[in-house]
């Protein structure tokens, strides 16, 4: 009688489809996966530890480097947590620009997702198209913050500076053409037999299991759970915007694909509403104990310069207490939990990364399928290792 044995296969950390430095140790029975053991931490930089030694303003640049495909979402989550702790009210113009940028960031992140996900499972053209559109978002980033990725644009109490005049036209033009590009991607994928074969019925996880394992964001909505923090626990003025929350039915990779595509269309609509709401006004709260002074006053008056210097070097003391702020980042719920002991640095800053928790579901979603299907599961979970390892 013939005997069989399982084989252990190492995948990563330098595997092209593992999106960074994810290492998976697979137990295989033939080509069928019987066990997946993820090894993470290759990109661990100790952001939480570093944060305990920096003032609240100095932590902000670190958050850019978590989910580096969606820097402004990370900025927003952190800034909102600090503002909640300090009780700062943000001017309307700043809030609107924040929402416009957060939604453009969602578009950007989903564009990278669709590009890499499609490339991983054999549709190369989409990659080229999606990166072309992503470039426009990067240009908008560069226009307002000077950086393409590490934007560091938001400030406690508002924004680092007002946006330039070209901003509105550039964003508006992009939002006008983007739905047409989305139609192109759908034309390439939605009815493509190879795409359907690879995604329909792949990585199925029921709604109950998905909640139990902690999935959030599009991965959870793909399993039919109608929950979106922007609508259900609105922050930063999202309650003044109309948008739909797409929900899947079949809990598989194809439904998560459809959910994300609708999210991109809705993001365009939110940005349009934001542009319509945009009115002239201050972009930084008048709260001198906490906020930086406006740049004009720093450059033109000694008081402004001293003020800037004090805030930059000393920071501000925060009241004793603890706050948690969750935002709907492109990949799921991104949470910042700050414990303050009354000093100018947090006693503890905990980052709740959506990708870290979502990646946990990888074993459940890929058991009993082939290695090639595992690659599709990695794509559909839309993970970013910078955020997982922190």
């Amino acid at each position, binding site marked *: 009688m013939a005997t069989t044995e399982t084989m252990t296969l190492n995948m990563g950390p330098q595997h092209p489809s593992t999106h960074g430095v994810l290492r998976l140790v697979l137990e295989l029975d033939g080509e069928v996966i019987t066990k997946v053991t993820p090894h*993470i*931490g290759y990109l*661990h930089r*100790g952001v*939480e*530890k*570093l944060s*305990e*030694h*920096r003032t609240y303003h100095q932590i902000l640049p670190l958050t850019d480097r978590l989910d580096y495909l969606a820097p402004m979402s990370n900025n927003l989550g952190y800034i909102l947590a600090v503002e*909640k*702790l300090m*009780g700062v009210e943000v001017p309307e113009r700043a809030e609107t620009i924040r929402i416009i940028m957060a939604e453009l960031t969602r578009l950007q992140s989903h564009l990278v997702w669709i590009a890499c996900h499609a490339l991983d499972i054999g549709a190369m053209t989409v990659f080229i198209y999606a990166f072309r559109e992503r470039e426009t978002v990067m240009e908008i980033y560069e226009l307002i913050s000077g950086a393409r990725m590490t934007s560091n644009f938001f400030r406690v109490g508002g924004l680092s500076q007002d946006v330039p005049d070209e901003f509105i036209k550039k964003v508006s033009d992009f939002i006008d053409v983007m739905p047409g590009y989305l139609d192109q991607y759908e034309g390439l994928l939605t009815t493509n037999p190879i795409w359907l074969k690879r995604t329909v019925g792949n990585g199925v996880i029921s709604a109950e*299991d998905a*909640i*139990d*394992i*902690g999935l*959030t964001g599009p991965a959870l909505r793909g399993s039919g*759970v109608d*929950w979106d923090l922007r609508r*259900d*626990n609105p922050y930063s003025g999202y309650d003044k915007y109309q948008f739909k929350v797409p929900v899947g039915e079949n809990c598989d990779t194809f439904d998560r694909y459809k959910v994300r595509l609708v999210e991109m269309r809705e993001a365009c609509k939110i940005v349009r509403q934001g542009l319509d709401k945009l009115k002239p006004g201050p972009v930084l709260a008048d709260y001198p104990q906490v906020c930086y002074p406006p740049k004009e006053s720093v450059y033109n008056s000694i008081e402004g310069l001293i003020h800037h210097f004090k805030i930059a*070097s000393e920071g501000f003391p925060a009241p004793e*207490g*603890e*706050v*948690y702020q*969750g935002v709907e980042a492109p990949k799921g*719920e991104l*949470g910042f*939990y700050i*414990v303050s*002991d009354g000093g100018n640095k947090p*006693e*503890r800053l*905990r980052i*709740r990364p959506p990708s*870290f*928790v979502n*990646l*946990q579901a990888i074993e459940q979603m890929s058991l009993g399928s082939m290695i090639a299907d595992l690659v599709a599961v990695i794509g559909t979970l839309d993970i970013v290792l910078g955020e997982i*390892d*922190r």
Partner: protein
Amino acid sequence: MAENNRAVLKLKEKFAASIIDVVEFRDEVTVTVKKDAITDILMFLKQSLQYNLLTDLTAVDYLGKKEERFMMVYQLYSIPNKDRLRIKTPVNEVECKIPSAIPVWATANWLEREVYDLFGITFDNHPDLRRILMTDDWVGHPLRKDYPLQGPDREPYKGRLS
């Protein structure tokens, strides 16, 4: 107010002896409970009060600031009711262990591995308690307050020079 929070009302009814403290700050309710009742309380919150999503699980090191050095923090969310609740429980340095929350939420698995890795708190009945972010042969637990910022065997960090 915190007293009228639906979870606080029920917890006071059922686990009155185990509640140490109830605090409301910036509209967020935090309930501190005794460690020996933690699994029962979490199970009750999930099954009877629909806190079905464990958003986050972490720890805080209060070295030299509190009698019991560590504080475990559970951030709960109820998808049907769309509200949050924070449960905390102190863990002392000598014992340094707590029952695992995996029987209540599967999410707890990696989150507890992370707390074990970075704080050195062990979890009873955890099926796979290994380090997760640091390498397997790492010595020490980086997020403890007595762990130097610049790594072991280095001068302690004295603040930014600029």
